[in-house]
């Protein structure tokens, strides 16, 4: 092929890809289609995914932070958690595992004679009797159903003492199932479910608690009491409470804590008190501040003790018989002698175990457990301040207090946000990685889309 022919071919090839005539303006047809309008606008997700990575990540983080702050501000959980952290209630402490050996042991019934007289017919199969006093001992008798898990309302001194039984939603219906764990013999409701939530013990206010911890009829009762109070001087009350124990009677402070200061002061003590002094100690405790909640519980372990003692006596008799047998059969074959000795060893082990159990029960019965929770009485402060101050001072004080409270909530919100950000860091990183991956895939898909 010559150079001319070559040029001719190239020219013809160029001609092949050249459009002759007027352009048909197909782009206008493309624009007029419905797809065109929609496509030109593009989807918002598409546009967002097309953002630069730093902008996208910053936007996501911003959204997360805003969400967390909103959650922390508008949800009551934060405020509740904060209050619980500062002023844990008895139920909170109980749930925290401090006295998790047995819920019933923690809040078993107090064996009031009068109360037992009422409770026995209802609790013949469940000897535990639960009481929950919603006041400082001046409230009504058997009151309406309290709300377990929450702090009981402050006792009103004006409530008529001993006003008898005020039935709750279901009156004095006998509790069943889990209720019996927490003295549901007197509990309202009577439905199944977690003891403390679904079987609220009836509120019982007793002007005077029974002095006899171990009743004269020989019953063995493990006694537990919880008393919550508020006072101006938490530290003073804390120290006075510690001095209530009598070392001579074998009493001791199982644990104690004092935290915070001023309005945030909070103290808790667990006392082991001789049962015969329980009533006196509780009376003295009530003098230390305004009682906001009081719970008494007792667990009747008489049957256990009786059973244990019977089994113990039986095992001791068996041991005696075996020893006599061993002494009388000195000429018996060695195998028989060894078998006999093994049997004696087993019986002695049983005796030791039962003796230990009996001693443990005896300790539990002889020393009652008293949980004392003391917090600062801010309402009294407020009331005092209100009455003593002029309107201007009160206004200034209120603004200052609001400012402080606001800052505290702000700090809590920030702390909550930081906690969520740091605590969930691995999830945030994974989420951002997933987002970037999605963006990458979306972009790839988009880039390839025109060519499909």
């Amino acid at each position, binding site marked *: 092929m010559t150079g001319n022919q070559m040029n001719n071919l190239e020219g013809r090839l160029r001609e092949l890809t050249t459009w002759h005539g007027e*352009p048909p303006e197909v782009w206008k047809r*493309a624009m007029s289609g419905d797809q*065109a309008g929609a496509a030109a606008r593009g989807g918002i997700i598409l546009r967002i995914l097309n953002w630069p990575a730093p902008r996208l990540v910053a936007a996501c983080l911003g959204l997360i932070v805003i969400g967390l702050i909103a959650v922390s501000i508008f949800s009551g959980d934060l405020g509740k958690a904060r209050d619980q952290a500062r002023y844990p209630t008895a139920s909170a402490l109980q749930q925290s595992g401090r006295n998790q050996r047995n819920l019933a042991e923690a809040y078993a019934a107090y064996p009031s004679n009068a109360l037992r007289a009422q409770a026995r017919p209802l609790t013949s199969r469940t000897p535990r009797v639960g009481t929950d006093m919603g006041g400082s001992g001046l409230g009504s008798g058997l009151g309406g159903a309290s709300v377990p898990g929450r702090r009981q309302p402050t006792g009103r001194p004006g409530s008529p003492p001993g006003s008898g039984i005020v039935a709750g939603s279901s009156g004095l219906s006998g509790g069943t199932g889990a209720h019996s764990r927490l003295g549901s013999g007197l509990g309202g409701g009577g439905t199944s479910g977690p003891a403390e939530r679904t079987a609220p013990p009836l509120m019982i206010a007793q002007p005077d608690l029974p002095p006899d911890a171990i009743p004269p009829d020989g019953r063995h009762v493990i006694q537990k009491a919880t008393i919550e109070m508020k006072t101006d001087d938490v530290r003073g009350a804390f120290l006075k409470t510690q001095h209530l124990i009598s070392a001579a009677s074998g009493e001791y402070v199982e644990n104690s804590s004092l935290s915070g200061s001023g309005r945030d002061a909070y103290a808790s003590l667990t006392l082991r008190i001789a049962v015969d002094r329980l009533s006196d100690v509780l009376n003295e405790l009530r003098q230390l501040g305004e009682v906001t909640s009081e719970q008494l519980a007792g667990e009747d372990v008489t049957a256990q003790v009786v059973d244990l003692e019977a089994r113990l006596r039986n095992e001791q008799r068996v041991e005696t018989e075996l020893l006599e047998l061993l002494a009388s059969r000195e000429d018996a074959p060695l195998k028989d002698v060894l078998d006999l000795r093994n049997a004696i060893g087993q019986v002695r082990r049983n005796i030791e175990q039962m003796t230990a159990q009996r001693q443990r029960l005896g300790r539990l019965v002889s020393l009652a457990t008293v949980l004392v929770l003391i917090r600062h009485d801010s309402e009294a402060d407020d009331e005092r301040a209100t009455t003593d101050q002029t309107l201007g001072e009160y206004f200034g004080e209120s603004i200052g207090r609001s400012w402080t409270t606001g800052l505290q909530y702000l700090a809590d919100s920030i702390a909550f946000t930081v906690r969520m950000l740091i605590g969930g860091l691995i999830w945030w990183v994974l989420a951002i990685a997933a987002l970037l991956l999605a963006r990458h895939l979306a972009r790839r898909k988009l880039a390839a*889309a025109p060519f499909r």
Partner: protein
Amino acid sequence: MPHDSTDEVLLRRFVAGQREALGELAQRYELHLLGLARGMLGGRDDLACDAVQETWMRVIRYGASFNGRSSFRTWLYRILINRCRSTRKNEGRRPKSRQADPPQEAGQSPAATASPDEDNRELHAAVAQLAAAKREVLLLCYHADLTHEQAAKILRIPPGTLKSRLHAALEELRKRLATEGRS
């Protein structure tokens, strides 16, 4: 709108909502696109128009996702070539009876297109018999003012590959034309 705006700027303007920017892009490229499509689709103007229209629709639809890694021209031609491939594939699947009439020049009657350029028809037929890869290289390299480098980018092949394919395509084309000329 200033006429010296780059293609990318015009595309961004169009994505931002200035519809007239697409008109300017069309002014720059539509004739070239139509010509190339016509060449790739065996001289069929109707198919070429369809392919170019679909190309513009994809530009409209996916203009926002144009990432600027290649030039707009490369991107546009890539879309067109894919459209042409797809059209050829669809045409190949269609029954012969349903296929469109033989190629004719735009704006001319069938009677007029039958006579004017017998050589062009031969060339079309010879080019159509080439393998797709060679045909695309050949047409792109002799299309408008595209350089070999630009053609290589459009086809996503190295320049060396493009040149070797071009050489092979020309050789094969010459042989075919010579054979047809003798026959």
